[in-house]
Structure formats: structure tokens, C-alpha cells
């Protein structure tokens, strides 16, 4: 194997190296206009809705009741959450407290390795709930950092995908997100940008949702001071 490697690299190295200046990525983004925080929320919302996602604004403390209400409207029976996560626990408490209406919803923990329960995950889970690491206003993209409490398939296999996002985590561009959060210093094994429900236009350019991933993307935008509509 190594000889192939050396042959290829040898051929590439035998060419006199051209002197090409490093691309001025930073300068290009600096030349783009900058939005303030509220403009970013507006842009993100508009872009997500244009990509066929549902966006709900709420005060931080209300998010769990908003999720439960939407789950009921959609007649969901099972909702998958990262095991042992604060948001998962909070949602379960809220669901169990069972206020006026009795909930049929079951909160399921993603607690074991995928192989041990793959059939059930593929066949019997209606929805998943993620917490976005951050987001991108320009393109309406949610950034998910996967890991033990945010497994990769949680945001892919269930037909409905809920994402919680705090409005102070919205960057203007992907570049801004990478720079501000210093992605080059280290990334989890899988980072995902999600900009709508799964879709395809492979049949006669006709757009269809729910190709292989979620058919519906529901974004809950949490405003810290409760100053939301």
C-alpha cells in the first residue's frame, strides 16, 4: 500500500510548486454586511420557514409545554430524547405532571447502543428531540454537535424532528460560527447542519419531503427574557 502512496505523492511532488497566495476568506466575510441579534433571529426564521420547517417562538421557561402541545396536535405517541439530559428530564417531568389533559405521549430515552434496539428505533419512534449547539441565520441552518447525549440517529430516523434553539446561539454565517466557536481546535465525531426536513427532487424535479430522514422539522426558538410572540 505504502508504495502506491509514495508513487502518487512522488508524482505530485515532481511538479515545481506554484506560488499561490493563501485565500483571503476572512477579508471576504468582513466585507459582507453584519446583522444585529434581532435581525439574525428574523433571517433564521424566514430561511427555515422557506425550507418547509415549522418555527415556534417561546419564552425559555415555557418550551416543554410548547413541545408537548405540538406533540399532541400531531398525535405523536413516542418522543425520543438523549438519556439523562436536562431537557429530556424536564420534558418527562412536565409530561408526567399531566395537567388538565391526560397525555398519551411516551418519552423514550436513547439509552442503549443502536444495535440493541435498531428495529424499534426504525419502526416505532414517532419523533426525536435535539438541542441545537448553535445556528446560522443566513441559511436557516441548525448546528447539531452529536455525542453520547445527542446520538447521530436521533435527528435522522424518527419522522418528526424537534430542535430546541436558544436565540443567543445564532451566528450570521457558517464562517462566523466556525470562527467564534473555534471549531478548528476540535470537533466531535459528527457535526451536522440541518436546514429543513429531508427532501428530494429526483423525480421530475418535483419536491417531496421525507426522503430518508424526517418529514417534519419543528424548531422551538427559546427567548431568554420571554419577550417572544
Amino acid at each position, binding site marked *: 500500500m505504502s508504495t502506491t502512496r509514495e508513487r502518487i505523492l512522488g508524482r505530485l511532488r515532481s511538479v515545481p510548486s506554484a506560488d499561490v497566495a493563501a485565500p483571503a476568506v476572512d477579508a471576504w466575510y468582513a466585507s459582507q454586511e453584519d446583522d444585529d441579534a434581532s435581525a439574525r433571529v428574523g433571517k433564521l426564521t424566514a430561511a427555515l420557514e422557506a425550507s418547509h420547517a415549522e418555527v415556534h417562538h417561546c419564552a425559555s421557561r415555557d418550551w416543554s409545554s410548547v413541545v408537548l402541545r405540538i406533540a399532541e396536535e400531531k398525535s405523536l405517541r413516542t418522543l425520543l430524547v438523549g438519556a439523562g439530559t436536562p431537557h429530556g428530564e424536564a420534558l418527562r417531568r412536565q409530561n408526567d405532571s399531566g395537567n388538565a389533559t391526560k397525555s398519551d405521549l411516551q418519552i423514550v430515552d436513547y439509552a442503549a447502543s443502536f444495535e440493541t434496539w435498531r428495529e424499534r428505533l426504525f419502526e416505532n419512534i414517532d419523533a426525536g428531540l435535539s438541542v441545537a449547539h448553535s445556528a446560522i441565520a443566513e441559511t436557516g441552518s441548525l448546528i447539531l454537535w452529536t455525542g453520547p447525549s445527542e446520538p447521530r440517529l436521533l435527528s435522522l430516523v424518527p419522522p418528526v424532528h424537534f430542535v430546541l434553539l436558544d436565540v443567543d446561539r445564532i451566528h450570521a454565517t457558517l464562517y462566523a460560527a466556525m470562527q467564534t466557536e473555534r471549531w478548528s481546535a476540535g470537533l466531535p465525531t*459528527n457535526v451536522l447542519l440541518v436546514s429543513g426536513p429531508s427532501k428530494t427532487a429526483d*423525480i421530475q424535479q418535483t419536491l417531496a419531503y421525507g426522503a*430518508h430522514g424526517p418529514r417534519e422539522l419543528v424548531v422551538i426558538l427559546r427567548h431568554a427574557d420571554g419577550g417572544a410572540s
Partner: protein
Amino acid sequence: MSQTVHFHSAKEFADRTRAAVGNPAHRRSFRGAMDFLQAKRAAQFPDPQAFENLRTLGEAIRRYSLAHLPDLLERLEARLTANGFHVHWAETAEDANAIALDIARRIEARHVIKGKSMVSEEVGFNHAMEAAGIEALESDMGEYIVQLAGETPSHIIMPAIHKTKQEIATLFAERIPGVDYTEDVDELIRIGRQVLRRKFLAADIGLSGVNFAVAETGTLCLVENEGNGRMCTTVPRIHIAITGIEKVVEKLEHVPPLYSLLTRSATGQAVTTYLNLISGPRRSGELDGPEEVHLILVDNGRSRAYADEQMRATLQCIRCGACMNHCPVYARIGGHAYGTTYPGPIGAIVSPHLLGLESTYPLAFASTLCGACGEVCPVRIPIPELLVRLRNEAQALPTANAPVRGRGAARRMLPSAVWRGWAFVYGHLKTYRLVSWLLSRGRALSPANQGAWTASRTPLVPAPKRLRDLLKEHSR
């Protein structure tokens, strides 16, 4: 099912072209699709100056990456290895398949599920797997349809662009057990989703391509809308990524401009549904993701193109397909007529490096040189210049160590003799005078049948008086 055409003559290309042009339904579907994609792209770049600025940046990133290609490949390999990937190098298509087969045999794999990968088409991956008794199933909806029909993709971004929904409805009803005929697109996609979900679970290996490989962090970036790429890279035990050596960039910050140019140029989307950044296999504590991730780096003629300064620009390509969508020839003959994995203008400039000019030189001539491809290319590859260069290479004297394999493949005795004569006449004043005098005198002898020229034009006849004679009369 999918295959690389390793040899086809100029005549076969002409025959396929004639067949394609003579099929009105086929032409209508391509015309419609091209108009659709052109309009969507145009809407993404409303300001021509902003587009020029961004593509200057895109071009700079690609040129910089290529200028440092060997170093970046070594850094990429080191970072990926540190992240837990296995990196393999393949000189040829056969090498690439052999590496994948070794991995498959080690785990006694029966089923491979595939995300979209043009390089896997380029190396004939599906054939190699099938020959070894391993099923290789496409999971991108378009690729799945094309594979079900026993065909090959006709477009690098929209593989099933040549098929109508009626054809797909018939195909599904005939080939998928228990499915009734339906033209409802949502329903067709739902059927595909259901079939393929079982296949993701059954697969031992997931195969994918790579859009960008980042050296500094050891990250593979995959761009897609459907989510099948994520399935392929997450559900099976082993993920194998396969890509050309040119796909590497130095830094993570080089990805956003290229990603933006790619999605807007390809399908006129501001962004795709998913950008999947993979920096390692499943780590301890994680509950899903592949146990092993392999990257196969494929040369297959690329390092040879790299050696020639002009041809190196070919490797800037980010495979957006915009050059195809804007090509008047592609729009009329469609992808299959080209007979190569990559059709259209990009196919014409990249295929000679992968397959040699012997079988691919007609593609460089299948262009009006209108320049549309060069104008839309998001990384500013001078495609028309490269087409002219390849035409020259195809007709030049064959030499050892030529920058493209098969140099001189289009060289024919008669035309080269004619041009040598032409050069001699124009290089010698007395001969020139004599010959031009003889021609104008003997104009009555000009043949009425001048081959292809007179098929749709009047014959060429020398003027009764030469220009120098007219000038002489005029100055009297």
C-alpha cells in the same frame, strides 16, 4: 449495473448522439430540466458582481489547495489517522475496488448500501462488488431509480433527470414486489423510503463520496438533501468513503465559500438540507455511528493531469454540474450520449485524464465553444480553453510522457497532410502566389460534393479574383 465505459469509438459517440437527438420525448425532458436548473441558479446569484467576488474566492481556495496538494494530502492522512480513520491510496480504479473488497471480505460483508458518489461510478465499484457476490445498492432516490432500471446516471447531480414520473411509476410497479402503479410523486418517494430503510438496516458497509476533505481537522464533509448519505455513514458497522485526491482543502474555513458556491450553482439552493461533517468513527460512550471509517484516496489519472500547469485547472472542479446545465450540447443530447461517467463539459475535460484520449477525444469536439460553461463555473475553470487544448492534444504527434494518455488519438493521415501542405504554402510567398493563382483559375473544377460541408451548405469555391488582384485593380 452502473459501469464505466472503457472504450468507445468516435462513431459510437456519433451514433448515440444521433439517437438522442432523434428522440423528442427525451429532448423535452432534458430541455425542461435544464431550463428549470438554470432559472433556479440565476435566482441565487441576482448580483453579477457579488457572484464574481465569491467565485474569485472559490477559485483562490481551489488553486491554493492544489498548489499544496502533496503536503495537504499528507496532513490529511495524519489527522484522519489520529482521529481513528483508516486511509488508503489507490493508483487506479482496480486498486480502489481491491481495497474495498479486502475490507468487505474481512468482515464477510454481503450487502453494501451506497450514498451518492461519482468516484464510485468512475471506478466501476458496483460491478466489482457484484462480481465478488456482494450486493451494492444505491440509496440516493435518483440513483436508486436508475439502478432499478439497469441504467447509469445521466447527470452528476440529478441522476434520473432523463426519466419521467410515468416511467418511474411503471418501473416501481414492475420491479418492487407489492407495489401498484402510481404517478403520485410523494407516494413514489414513500415507497422508495420504505424499501431503502430495510436496506440500511441490512447493510454491513455504507459507502459514500466526499465533497471536501479538511486537512487541519481531519474532517470529511458530505453535502446532501435526502438524508441517505447520513444513513450510509451512520447505520452500517463500517463506513467507506471514496474520493479523488483533489478534494482536499487546508482549513475548515475554506469550506463555507465552496459549500455556498456548490449548492447555489448545482441546484439553485441557498443551502442543502444536510451538511455532514465526519471527524471520526464512534467513540466510547457514543451510542451510534460506524465502528470503522475508511477513506480511499483515488488517483486514477489525476496526478498526471496535475503535472501540466494548464490541465491542472481541471482538478479545481467541485462537481456542481452547472457547466452541464448551461451547455447547449448537453441540453440536446443528454448525459448518456457521452458514454462516460462524467458527461457534459466537465466530462469532456476530465474523462481524457481518467480514461485516455483514445476513447474520449470526441467529447472535446462536442462543443460549440460558446463559453457558457466557463462563465458559470463557480471556481472559474477555463473550460473552453481546456477543450481547445484537448483538441490540439488529440491531433498532435504522439509522444511518450504526454500530459494526457493517448495524445494524437484523433490524428488522421489526410487532414495532417493537408495542414502540413497549408502551412508550407502560407510559409512561402512565391508558392503562395502560385497556388492562389492556380486555384482562382481552376475554380470551375471545384467539386460539388465536399463531404460533410455540403451536407447542409453550398460548396466552397475560390473567388474569381484573388484579394491581391482586387487591390491592384482598385489602386489603379
